[in-house]
């Protein structure tokens, strides 16, 4: 059982939870995720660790209420307990000094992007962060991103904040302006697919952090399997980050709809 220490609403449907998990806080690195389960009849779902505080023994999760399980989590309050939190899982982000890194995230994908932005900045890179959302209210973590990036570009679909347009437009503007050595993308599969197509055109190495269906999160079931470079990989143990240009995003999106009728 893991106690919720702090809860904050980023928007109506996006909640930040600071959760007691001292062992995970101690061993996690950027890119890692946890599996959580709320309630005795609860489902196991993966959530990326947005940040952690070793001294306080807490990890921060950002949850968007989209289905039954995520809504259940979002409904928990400070002082409540999450039945199970297990991790850190997956491979940590490979961080090194490459030059200029563009980090782009959409929607709730911005939360797991934060530790990656921090880590690349710390490693001495020039970091440009592109945040995207449908509308102004859904832009999250802008301040934290600004603290850790050389530049933050905000894109909204409706133009209510920052520039009007999709994340790809923001990224392309940067690519046209200066040399980009690496692109990191986290967000809805469709967004990552288009970012990947864009950077492929410019031949820029790109890493995507994938969010597939998972059950155990330790490699024992294969629910999260995807095709990368023609080979089947398990996102939970081989990933969650992969060379975006090798990922079969269409298959991934198809598999994400496996249980659509039942949600």
């Amino acid at each position, binding site marked *: 059982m893991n106690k919720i220490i702090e809860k904050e609403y980023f928007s109506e449907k996006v909640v930040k939870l600071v959760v007691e998990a001292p062992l995970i806080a101690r*061993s996690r690195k950027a890119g890692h995720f946890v599996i959580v389960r709320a*309630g005795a*009849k609860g*489902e196991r779902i993966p959530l990326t660790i947005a940040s952690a505080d070793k001294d306080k023994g807490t990890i921060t999760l950002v949850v968007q209420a989209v289905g039954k399980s995520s809504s259940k989590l979002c409904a928990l309050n400070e002082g409540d307990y999450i039945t*199970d939190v*297990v991790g850190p899982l997956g491979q940590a982000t490979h961080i090194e000094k490459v030059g200029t890194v563009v980090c782009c995230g959409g929607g709730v994908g911005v939360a797991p992007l934060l530790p990656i932005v921090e880590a690349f900045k710390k490693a001495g890179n020039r970091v440009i962060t592109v945040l995207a959302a449908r509308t102004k209210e859904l832009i999250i973590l802008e301040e934290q991103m600004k603290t850790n990036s050389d530049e933050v570009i905000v894109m909204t679909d409706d133009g209510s904040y920052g520039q009007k347009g999709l994340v790809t437009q923001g990224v392309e503007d940067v690519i046209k302006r200066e040399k980009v050595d690496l692109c990191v993308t986290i967000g809805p599969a469709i967004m990552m697919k288009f970012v990947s197509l864009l950077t492929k055109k410019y031949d820029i190495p790109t890493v995507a952090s994938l969010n597939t269906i998972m059950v155990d999160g330790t490699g024992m079931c294969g629910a999260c399997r*995807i095709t990368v470079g023609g080979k089947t990989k398990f996102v939970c*143990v081989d990933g969650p980050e992969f060379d975006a240009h090798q990922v079969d995003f269409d298959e991934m999106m*198809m598999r994400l709809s496996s*249980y659509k009728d039942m949600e």
Partner: protein
Amino acid sequence: MDNKEYLASERAQSWREELRKSKSNKERTQIKRVHMNELAPAYRITNKEEVNQGLTKEQAMTEASRCLDCPTPLCMTGCPVQINIPQFIKNIERGEILEAAKTLKETSALPAVCGRVCPQEKQCESKCFYTQKMGKDAVAIGYLERFAADYERESGQISVPEIKTYNGIKIAVVGSGPAGLAFAGDMAKYGYNVTVFEALHEIGGVLKYGIPEFRLPNAIVDVEIDNLRKMGVEFITDCIIGRTLSYDDLHEMGYKGIFVASGAGLPRFMGIPGENLIGIMSSNEYLTRVNLMDAANPESDTPVIKGKHVAIIGGGNTAMDSVRTARRLGAERAMIVYRRSEEEMPARIEEIKHAKEEGVEFLTLYNPIKYIGDEKGKVKQMLLQKMELGEPDASGRRSPIAIPGKTELINVDEVVVSVGVSPNPLIPNSIKGLQVSKWGTIIVNQETMRSDIPDLYAGGDIVRGGATVILAMGDGRRAAASMHQALSEKA
């Protein structure tokens, strides 16, 4: 006193002698092997109730009287944990069922489990005097083991094995499956402070996520786990060694010995076209959803696909568990697709029989070569290759060969791939210097179960690849004995 002398002294007890004299061997051998009551197939496929109903006390005592109380009990050589079989059976014959249960627990941490899931026909019962010398049905050792364990549980008088004195030495166990539990039980009996670390949110490993309720009710596993708790074993769930805590962390926390029993949980896929379509999954995923996550229950948040035409690829026990689960989830056509013939199937004969009674179709000598999906990416057909068996190879096994041009297209809306598992690399990879075979199994001394890292022992499927519950338990016991010896010498 060595084991042989010990057995002889037990056999020489006056009650055993009297019992032997009470019936002639001729009388004993004329009794027919008991038949265990089962739920009717038409009824049992509508629910997850246990199919085998167990023996009545009367049935058990009669069956126990078939046992000839051999001076050299061969049956014991077939038991990986060396249960004192005649002693427990003779206790049943004289009606001392709780005594029988105690005898079981001397060597087995989970008798109610083993009595249900062990392939006795390949182990203890295959060595029984009846099968070896008389060509008759073996004494139903498995049924009797189960009876004694169930009787004790239902009596509410469960005995907790005696703990000598706690020696204060901390021992860590990685994984709470059968190997880990058997090891933990023995080490607790020796007096160690044992902590079991489990990655999942439930204790029991394959006993919980893999083997279905209709074969092994979770409540029964829980009783045996509680028994270990009463012996002082501590369980920590949601903790992955190699992730949440490292091997070095365990050292820092003062653990003097570590037993790795993390199993072979990595599912194999065949790598054929269309295998990633919606509706195709590993048996691990399918069974985990249904067993561990209770996905068939509408109150559970975890979903599961309930196909109408379901194919299970493979012929092992996991395949049988999956196909029988599919029937219970409402499949109209549930099929086993196996590339060899029924004779070569690794599944237990009883499971194959039960599956057939439940209306499962057996497509033997067929191998899938491709899956075809609809416009939404859902599987709708499988293309099967007809096979034939070739000449026996060097190992004496006849290998399946494709018959050119002979294929068949069959409609399916769900496929469960059950073609085996590999050891999960997570733990071996996280321990520097640990020797691992090319199959990913941890290399240990077969006698002591010790790895080349002196304080690290391993057993069960992480050492064997996919094997059985009882072999895993045997490994756990051997590892406990040798770790205890090593630590005692040190002290």
